[in-house]
């Protein structure tokens, strides 16, 4: 493997890591910060991809589809929390597991009813369609660089919101002791609903942004679910910085694993998680260091 290939593989690793962080960002908020074990996260990602497909074909422009999709996602998340989650916070974690599993089945079937079972593609918008030539007469798709940019923006946005603003502080306090924050006069139920809607919006955004690259097909949600939990857990539950570092780590391990150790490539990510959790049973970063 000469240097150019090595550098390209590193770029691939970073890009895949950032994409993983974007896809897992919604879960970092809902599972990491709010402590809700949300198995339906993959379904929200799938909803995002199908929303990008339908809205892009309706409005004809990808950017418009994104905006419209985000608004719909926030409303969708708001209603979802109100109907299905508002009474679950005091319940045992396992009740959330059961509820969100039920949601997976419902969303999968609704998708089949509404949009059907065919495989669809979403065209990359024209101004992002080109490729940047890099070594080995290969070219790097500009759209993937755009995705990485979006990922960094989301990472920075989440980090600043949660660490540097009063709202972020209240959210983090709420996740540690919900009753205390309520007694301080904060309308915690509304705050939780908004944070949940934000988490759903992030998952839908990830689905929409990734759609042109990942394409849109039945069962795509289930495939990203486990890797998102791996990212959040390795990083340390509740830590945004941890999720980013974990996503990049997985990006490198997955990319170079496929090249050097094909035989075990499938198991490498889980080997990594097992190793990290045995070395630091609470993940890489404590929430306080997030």
């Amino acid at each position, binding site marked *: 493997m000469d240097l150019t290939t090595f550098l390209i593989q590193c770029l691939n690793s970073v890009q895949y890591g950032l994409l993983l962080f974007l896809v897992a960002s919604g879960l970092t908020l809902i599972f990491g910060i709010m402590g809700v074990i949300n198995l339906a996260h993959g379904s929200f990602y799938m909803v995002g991809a199908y929303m990008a497909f339908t809205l892009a074909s309706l409005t004809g422009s990808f950017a418009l589809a994104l905006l419209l999709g985000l608004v719909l996602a926030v409303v969708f998340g708001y209603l979802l929390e109100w109907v299905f989650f508002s009474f679950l916070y005091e319940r045992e974690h*396992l009740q959330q597991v059961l509820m969100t599993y039920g949601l997976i*089945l419902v969303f999968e079937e609704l998708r089949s*009813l509404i949009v059907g079972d065919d495989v669809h593609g979403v065209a990359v918008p024209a101004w992002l369609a080109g490729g940047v030539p890099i070594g080995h007469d290969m070219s790097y798709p500009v759209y993937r660089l755009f995705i990485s940019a979006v990922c960094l923006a989301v990472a920075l946005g989440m980090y600043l919101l949660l660490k540097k603003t009063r709202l972020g502080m209240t959210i983090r306090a709420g996740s540690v002791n919900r009753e205390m924050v309520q007694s301080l006069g904060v309308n915690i139920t509304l705050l939780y609903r908004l944070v949940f809607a934000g988490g759903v919006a992030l998952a839908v955004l990830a689905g929409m942004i990734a759609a042109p690259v990942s394409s849109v097909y039945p069962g795509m949600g289930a495939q990203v679910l486990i890797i998102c939990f791996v990212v959040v*857990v390795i990083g340390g*539950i509740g830590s945004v910085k941890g999720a980013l570092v974990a996503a990049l780590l997985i990006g490198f391990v997955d990319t170079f694993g496929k090249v050097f150790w094909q035989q075990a490539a499938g*198991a490498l990510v*889980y080997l990594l998680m097992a190793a990290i959790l045995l070395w630091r*049973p609470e993940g890489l970063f404590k929430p306080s260091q997030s």
Partner: protein
Amino acid sequence: MKTRIAWIAAFALLALLPGLPEPIGTAFHLELGAQVLTMAIFALSLQLLVGCTGLVSLGHAAYFGAAAYVVAMLAPQSEAGNGWWLLAASVGGAALLALLIGLLVMRTRGVYFIMVTLAFAQLVYFVVHDTSGFGGSDGAYIYFRPEFRLGGALLFDLQKPAHFYWFTLASCGLTVSGLGMVLRSRLGHAFAGIRHNEQRMRAAGFPTVAYKLASFVIAGGFAGLAGFLYAVRNGFVNPEILSWHQSGNALLMVILGGLGSLAGAMAGAVSFVLLSEWFQSLTKHWQLLMGGFIIGSVALLPHGLVGGFRALRRTRPAAREIAR
């Protein structure tokens, strides 16, 4: 004492199924009954871990699948294998795997424990999926159902659906009575203590890691029993029986039925399997009905089917809540 009679009555009734007249006692319903009972054993084994010891594992299918693969790999291809030996090898193999993984995962807690058990189960899945020796992604066959002989005489003729159903029913009875005995014993009460307050158990002097490991291995062994029954009944094993979906289904059965009680695990398994069969026969979009049922049960029955049922007839306060 009252609950023991209820259990014996239930199993006696179930034993009558093969004798029932044609439309009900058909070979298909015996196979379905055996399938439900196998899943019940799998759910019971997970209940010991999740409901009674407070260890939520999302990788329990690793031991179910390991036992099934031990049978597939060791069963002779040309003639029926020795049932006793295969049963011991598969249950022992599953318990051994549970010991190995258990030793590693006990350091973690809570959600991290859930994810580490998932990670190790996925490792076992990929080892089986990617090695051709295990039959790769297409799976492997068991050509002849093993035989259980006692001094030359055939104890069970597993070829006959009725015999196989009774064999599975006996295994399920053994699981319920075995786990019930363990839960009533000092070991079981220690598990309950760990579930409610592990810190206090350590303060009293219990080496809780060793106890949790014991629970992990016992649960792994009984999951192996379910895996053995699955492999012998289907005669076909595939990596998907080790997938996280299988572990997830088992966890759902236990939560759906009600955490902490063996009856809950049974009720969860029976309703999960039979309802999905029934919904599938109703419509192509059966997952919508299944999802709706699950969401409904979470909303209306916070303590699961059996928990809810018990709440309905709460005549006297559950003085001693030790798992019956």
